């Protein structure tokens, strides 16, 4: 009995939607825009986070030693760092090596370095994390290493990291606020569409109740209408996301080399299902609010 009643209610919900095409279409499109933007923000956020991780993974620290430090002292210090931090690849860069590197980097202009003594360059220790480190870990490590004897400065691209983190925080906040706002609007639109439908069919509802329909029986087709609108909106949003993934992102990655490290999560079936389920839930919530208010009266 449950199945044929459920099937009948579903059929009724579809017929009701079909009878009011314009309001239903507006609700479905609003829902699809809200879900598309919400899902888009989440994907962009995940991309920005992966970009940050990619850049964080490339991070390295350089310890600059005092001019008075000898190569032997530098080697001892490097050994000490290596022992204390097995997670780091530690390399002492002696002054002569540093000068050779500089010559290589300067290529045709390397002759300008003729006559410069290696002692003019500082002794440095280069540290590369073997595993990915967060910016917080990197900052903590830099603070710890800066307290070592003979270390006069620690370079790790602090300003760059600060900016990236600030950007990520702003993205997170803006994404959350925009998603909440858009979803709130979608719930309101669905609630209002269903409320209008309920209002238009108030005589019908009265008759249904007079012949013995329970509140749940009267409510069910409206709730199903909300769910159907939500699911339809989610499917349109999915189509939009699919286009973005297939067309826009590959073009952006080809055009902007710095985005190469960014990996937006793939469109996994579980994520697609979650989006459709979420759309249905938003539609259900909107219609529930509309019908509950009407039936309370």
């Amino acid at each position, binding site marked *: 009995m449950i199945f*044929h009643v459920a099937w009948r209610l579903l059929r009724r919900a579809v017929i009701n939607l079909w*009878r009011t095409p314009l309001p239903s279409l507006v609700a479905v499109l609003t829902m699809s825009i809200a879900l598309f933007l919400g899902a888009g923000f989440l994907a962009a956020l995940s991309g920005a986070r992966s970009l940050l991780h990619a850049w964080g993974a490339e991070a390295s620290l350089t310890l600059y030693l005092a001019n008075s430090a000898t190569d032997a002292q530098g080697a001892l210090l490097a050994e000490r760092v290596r022992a204390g931090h097995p997670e780091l690849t530690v390399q002492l860069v002696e002054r002569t090596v540093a000068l050779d590197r500089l010559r290589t980097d300067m290529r045709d202009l390397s002759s300008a370095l003729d006559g410069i003594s290696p002692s003019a360059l500082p002794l440095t220790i280069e540290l590369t994390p073997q595993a990915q480190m967060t910016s917080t870990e990197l900052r903590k490590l830099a603070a710890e290493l800066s307290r070592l004897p003979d270390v006069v400065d620690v370079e790790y691209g602090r300003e760059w990291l600060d900016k990236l983190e600030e950007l990520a925080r702003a993205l997170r906040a803006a994404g959350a606020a925009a998603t909440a706002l858009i979803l709130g609007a979608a719930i309101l639109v669905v609630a209002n569409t269903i409320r209008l439908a309920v209002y238009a069919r108030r005589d*019908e509802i009265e*008759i*249904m109740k*007079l*012949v*013995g329909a329970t*509140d749940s*029986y009267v409510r069910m087709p409206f709730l199903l209408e909300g769910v159907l609108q939500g699911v339809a909106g989610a499917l349109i949003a999915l189509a939009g996301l699919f286009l973005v993934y297939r067309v826009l992102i590959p073009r952006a990655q080809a055009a902007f080399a710095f985005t190469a490290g960014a990996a937006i999560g793939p469109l996994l079936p579980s994520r697609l299902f979650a989006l459709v389920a979420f759309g249905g839930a938003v539609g259900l919530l909107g219609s529930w609010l509309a019908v509950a208010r009407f039936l309370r009266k």
Partner: protein
Amino acid sequence: MIQLFHVCKAYGDEPPTLDDLSLEIGKGEFVWLTGPSGAGKTTLLKMLFCAEVPTSGQILVGGRNVQRLAAAGVPMLRRSIGVVFQDFKLLPHRTVLENVGYALEVLGASDREIEERAIRRLDQVGLRAKARALPKTLSGGEQQRVAIARALVNDPAILLADEPTGNLDPSLTDSILALIFDANARGTTVVVATHDHALLQRHQRRTITLAGGKLISDV
């Protein structure tokens, strides 16, 4: 089957629509409810199917005190009562067949059962050929017959009819009344509100007369 104890109904400061009404209608009885317009006939019927609540007094329908029914109990009570409304109250976007079948639909009957029983009732009221039509395409008399078919489709224990023959010509009146009498013969308790005295003369049954909300006679 139906008992009223000192029932009053008043709207605001207006004179009471029903005033200290007490009566009893037994199981399987047929009762005419008559009186001039504004006598309180429709209000009384509405209270019997919980569309109105009395201001004071008690109403028992099928042994259940309607004022003490929980919210979920009202639809259950209504499922045992067939009602023919004065204004028909048909669902405008549903076909005649769907309108008649709706009383079975809320009971959870299967599509096949709904169709079979609704068609049978439409056959009895002479509207089988219009099963797929929408109510707005029917005449007033035809809509009244659809309303009667819907009220009787689930063989209710009680049938309440508010001026069920008001829109019918004399020949149809008798055939519709025959349906109502037939339901009564099968054990349904019937209360018919009418102000058609010719009808009361032609079919003499227990007659309750109201005027100004008061019980004038019960013979």
